[in-house]
């Protein structure tokens, strides 16, 4: 068991390091020169600066060193939580992110919780209801929810609930009421993703012999559904918890931009617009860390929840991968 845990943690670290390196390579090795990008974004022609000025600027951001020196420098910094200096704001990236991460965490966490509840409820209803019309409606709903672009959902909510009804503020990040519509926007997609997997898992579970046994013993349909089916169906769906968190984290980019909220998502959008390479690298790294960490936790607690999977004897049996989630979201 200890060996499994240690191995799994090591694997997560390696994946994270590789993800960092890949992002670094994309940002620093592709034909674009960060300095030129930044100058172009600021509207400055490189020709208008004297070579000395260019050299001085490059030295300021460490861009005059070889790519390897820069890589080791950045990697070492990132390990200590230092992501360098923003090319546009000229303040430490870590500071910028630290100021903005609070609202994003609140938003993502609330959206993830709402999505878990809503997605589970939807899957429960879609498999429990007997009236075929409702059943079809419920089971088709997730596909509809996953089809609407998030900015469309957001704009629709703004138009309806802010401008027509005046219930919630259309923009800003002040107070709990400003959180309602962003959370709904994110959880529409996240709960759809979850419900699709859960419904499949339910269908699978309800065909198992122990369900028939429970019914034959005289348990009511609802008792069987809740106590026997739900708990067993929810297990495999747990493996997509990482995906759900991933969805809520990436959604913050579009959602914070639409609702003009302060947060890391909008910071990312602004950083790409101003081609602020260190900021982009930092945001991608943090998002990947969250994603890898959630997946690691799920993998580690899965055997505790499902005693059929044991890591103590012989070969490790990984949890069954979530079905049909190779596509569906980006």
């Amino acid at each position, binding site marked *: 068991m200890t060996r499994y845990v240690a191995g799994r943690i090591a694997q997560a670290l390696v994946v994270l390091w*590789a993800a960092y390196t*890949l992002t670094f390579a*994309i940002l620093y090795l592709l034909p674009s020169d960060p300095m030129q990008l930044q100058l172009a974004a600021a509207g400055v022609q490189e020709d208008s600066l004297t070579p000395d000025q260019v050299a001085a600027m490059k030295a300021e951001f460490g861009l005059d060193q070889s790519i390897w020196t820069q890589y080791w420098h950045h990697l070492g910094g990132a390990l200590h939580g230092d992501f360098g200096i923003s090319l546009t704001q000229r303040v430490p990236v870590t500071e910028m992110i630290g100021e903005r991460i609070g609202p994003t965490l609140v938003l993502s966490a609330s959206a993830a919780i709402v999505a878990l509840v809503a997605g589970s409820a939807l899957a429960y209803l879609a498999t429990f209801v007997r009236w075929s019309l409702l059943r079809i409606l419920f089971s088709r709903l997730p596909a509809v929810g996953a*089809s609407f672009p998030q*900015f469309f959902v957001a704009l629709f909510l703004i138009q309806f609930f802010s401008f027509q009804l005046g219930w919630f503020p259309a923009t800003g990040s002040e107070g709990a009421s400003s959180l309602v519509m962003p959370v709904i926007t994110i959880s529409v997609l996240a709960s759809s993703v979850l419900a699709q997997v859960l419904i499949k898992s339910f269908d699978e579970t309800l065909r198992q012999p122990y369900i028939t046994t429970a019914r034959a013993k005289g348990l009511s349909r609802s008792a069987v559904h809740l106590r026997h089916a739900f708990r067993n169906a929810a297990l495999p769906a747990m493996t997509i918890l990482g995906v759900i968190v991933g969805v809520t984290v*990436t959604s913050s980019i579009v959602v914070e931009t639409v609702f003009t909220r302060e947060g890391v998502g909008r910071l990312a959008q602004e950083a790409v617009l101003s081609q602020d390479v260190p900021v982009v690298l930092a*945001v991608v790294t943090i998002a990947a860390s969250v994603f890898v960490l959630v997946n690691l936790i799920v993998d580690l607690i899965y055997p505790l929840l499902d005693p059929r999977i044991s890591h103590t004897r012989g070969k490790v049996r990984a949890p069954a991968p979530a079905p049909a989630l190779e*596509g569906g979201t980006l």
Partner: protein
Amino acid sequence: MTTTEVAERIEVDAPVPEQEAGGRSANLTANLIQLVRKPGFLLAALYVVFVLVSAFWPRLFTSRDPYGTDPKSAMLSPSIDHLFGTDVYGRDLWSRVLYGSPLTIKATLIALGIALVAGLTLGVVSGFFAGVTDAILMRVVDVLLAIPGLLLALAIVTALGYGTIPVAVAVGVGIVPGFARTTRAEVLRVRTLPYVEAARAGGASWGRVLVRHILPNSWGPVAVLAVLDAGVAIIAIASLSFLGFGAAPPAAEWGTLIADGRNYLVTSWWLSLMPGLFVALLVLSLNHISKTLQELSR
């Protein structure tokens, strides 16, 4: 007669390919009949065809110039005359959406092309050679999967710059891992089937087995995924151009149109919501088609 010649003779003598082809086309007709009977599928397919046709021949569906301004008819709400209303310059939004289609469709096709080529190659090589190659390639896929797709796309857009092509490339790379995994799983499944063994025993080379037997029999789930991912790509491309990384104005991708309309949301909801609905219906149709095909193949 050398052994290879014998093997070839056996292969040629075997009547399998022809029968297989006949069986397949008969199967296809049966499937088609089954599909046409599903009203939801038919509607979805018709809508997708409509969007494609209107992208290539927008004149069939609109007579208005997408760039022609007319201050007198600015900000009109949707009507028979202007299906999607008009924008602040009096441009007809419906024709702007239709004329914007080729850009988004082109980007989607590029993204899917990248995903298919890279994903299929990774998946086939991984599933076919197995062992160390498989282990290494799948770790690479794991790494790609560890970076949430949209963020990977953002990094690529930062490096490549803005425009339709960079956005398409960024989205395409984001879809690659899914394709690679699905293809690999299928190839792994098919390569152990008896007919592959039979073909090998008959003397066919691995290359021939791969092209003639494994690929044709494993592309089904990949095709279903491709349809689904077309929808994913459309959303991602629209999102990226909505965020401001798409083609420069006055060219109007769907996402850019929706983003532009955002500023007038208070008074003119149609500027954002009508193009948004147009996109959402397309993605929904693609999802439905993919789902129906998946159910059918079971």
